[in-house]
């Protein structure tokens, strides 16, 4: 076929010049997969913070406190809230740093270390969030006991009962609430970040296999 051979001749001579890709660019391509996972971790963590912020805007703690006549607690909550946001922003900054590092690194060894570091950061982040949930639940219980008038009866009963029956039940219910909440959030985080972490781990293993 004459035309095809004409094309072949032109093809072989290849007067077409391709934009040559440098070694650094090739390295970047090889590490692209990890960097896209880390990018998702960053995006999800930001969305998560925005989500919780949106919810907390809808729910006004100050008014609730005023209703309970617990105005002196408001300042503590403000501080707690502030510290919480500061810590979370710090985490997000770390996620961002990890992302930048992973997407620019040129060596596999460094990439493996960065992956391990990112995994650790995510783990700390989840633990921190779970810890915060426990802390705020406990604070909530304390405030309810100290200020909520509906609790008077219960307090009376605990104080006048010779056995610790009511106290035990109350503590038991609190503990159960904490466990259920923490369990739910733990599941939520496992789903959200667990999948990404597993993918990252698979990447790590793949890199390790090559690292004989």
């Amino acid at each position, binding site marked *: *076929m004459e035309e095809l051979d004409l*094309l072949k001749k032109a093809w*072989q001579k290849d*007067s077409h010049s391709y934009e040559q890709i440098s*070694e650094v660019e*090739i*390295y970047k*391509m090889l590490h692209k997969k990890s960097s896209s996972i880390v990018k998702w971790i960053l995006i999800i963590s930001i969305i998560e913070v925005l989500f919780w912020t949106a919810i907390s805007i809808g729910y006004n703690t100050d008014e609730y406190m005023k209703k309970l006549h617990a105005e002196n607690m408001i300042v503590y909550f403000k501080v707690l809230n502030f510290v919480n946001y500061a810590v979370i922003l710090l985490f997000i900054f770390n996620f961002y740093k990890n992302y930048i590092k992973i997407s620019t690194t040129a060596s596999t060894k460094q990439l493996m270390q960065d992956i391990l570091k990112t995994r650790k950061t995510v783990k700390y982040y989840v633990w921190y969030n779970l810890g915060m949930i426990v802390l705020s639940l406990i604070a909530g219980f304390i405030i309810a006991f100290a200020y909520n008038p509906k609790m008077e009866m219960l307090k009376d009963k605990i104080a006048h009962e010779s056995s610790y029956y009511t106290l035990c039940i109350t503590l038991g219910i609190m503990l159960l609430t904490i466990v259920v909440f923490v369990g739910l959030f733990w599941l939520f985080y496992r789903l959200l970040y667990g999948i990404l972490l597993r993918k990252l781990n698979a990447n790590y293993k793949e890199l390790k296999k*090559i*690292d004989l």
Partner: protein
Amino acid sequence: MSDNLEQLFVKQLKDNQNIIHKICRLYTNDEDAHKDLFQEITIQLWKAFPKFRGESKFSTWAYRVALNTAITLYRKSTRAVATTPYESQKHFLSQEEYNFEEEEQIKLMYQAVQQLNDIEKALVFLYLEDKDYTEISETLGISEVNARVKMNRIKGKLKKILNP
């Protein structure tokens, strides 16, 4: 060790990158798609690199992995593109030997090749790369007879596209 292997791979790939560029050129029709496919092929090559034992030349092995990647990626999206703005800007012939009639013929042929399906493109690609049927059959994992039959059919198909 790992960094050594990686360095070796990156160097080989850099030296042989025109193979991948050519495949990308055949399978994609704009610059972004070209880059995407190039990257995907690079990743697949890197994944398969530990299995590459140097029994064949790097380029031969790269042909196989790269074509397989292109074929699997473009299997689902059978885009038949008659005219491509990206290609029309580029010339096949160099300035010294420029011949309007020949250039037009080559362009038409090239556009016809673009309308082939993924596997046919792979065969034409290897044919254009001046591979013999033994190599074509090895690279694509089909028998030599099958490769010949397929190539003849493709030539028929191209003729039909050129002279409808």
